[in-house]
């Protein structure tokens, strides 16, 4: 990732930690087009779909140094609250206003064919706010 990009996540004490050096890629999945999901009857159902369908996947390299990815995500099985997520690039940031929270549902480690130890953390939006770049 370029130097100007950043990734921050809450650890289990609620402090934002910078883990960008551990993350080779991340994906943010959203509803494709607003028109595509417009229901023919009620708006409320559509809104539910829109919010529920934002999710994110982070893929990273195992790092157990202090305040890095393992410190942040090793609490996935025990920490039940949403985590604050912040992504920054070129002076713009996603997740600060409004402060979005996401629930991490797994911290899956795997050893790749090349011998590297990598992890995957899927997250789903949990506090009902639509993230915005500001």
């Amino acid at each position, binding site marked *: *990732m*370029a*130097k*100007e*990009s950043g990734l921050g996540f809450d650890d289990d004490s609620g402090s934002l930690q910078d883990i960008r*050096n551990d993350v*080779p*890629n*991340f*994906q*943010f*999945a*959203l*509803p*494709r*087009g*607003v028109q*595509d*999901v417009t229901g023919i009857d009620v*708006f*409320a159902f*559509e*809104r*539910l*779909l*829109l*919010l*529920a*369908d934002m*999710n994110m*996947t982070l893929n990273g*390299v*195992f*790092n*157990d*140094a*202090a305040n890095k990815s393992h410190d942040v995500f090793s609490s996935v099985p025990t920490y039940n609250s949403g985590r604050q997520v912040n992504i920054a*690039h*070129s002076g*713009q940031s*996603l997740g600060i206003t409004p402060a979005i929270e996401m*629930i991490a*549902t*797994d911290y*899956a480690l*795997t050893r*790749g064919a*090349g*011998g*590297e*130890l*990598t992890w*995957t953390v*899927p997250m*789903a939006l949990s506090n009902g706010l*639509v*993230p*915005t*770049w500001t």
Partner: protein
Amino acid sequence: MRDFARFVQRVEPKLPPGAMQTYDVSAPLETHWRSATCAEVECKAFMQGWSSDVLAGSADEARLAKAYEAEFRRGAIKGEKLETGFIRYHFPAGTACFRQAWHKLPLERPALFIVRSGDWRGTDGVIRRFATGAEWVDHFATHLDGISERVSRG
């Protein structure tokens, strides 16, 4: 990696993959990362030292002796016999850990900024590839604006 991804615990989206769009920032391990030393990544074992129990006379012990030959010769690694027949080796801080070959650091090359259709369940392919992160952010922001406008309208 792809097969493994299926076993990851996720919240199943309510929309089908065809109605989803994914914003992807990618710095593949093969092209954007280099091998690093324990000191560079400040790995816990290297910084604080650690101890490992191995069965006396086992293949594991032989492997340790071979991998850390120089340290053993210097007397840096101390072995402690346990009642269970194991030997507890104490590795001091500053010793390269067992994972030394796996440590990676980014090369600081610009990442690949992509928008593709679908999500983790499946994709029809790349919709657009951006030359700079700023363009990707702009596209992402416009898309989010559309969604948030729709949500606020109710």
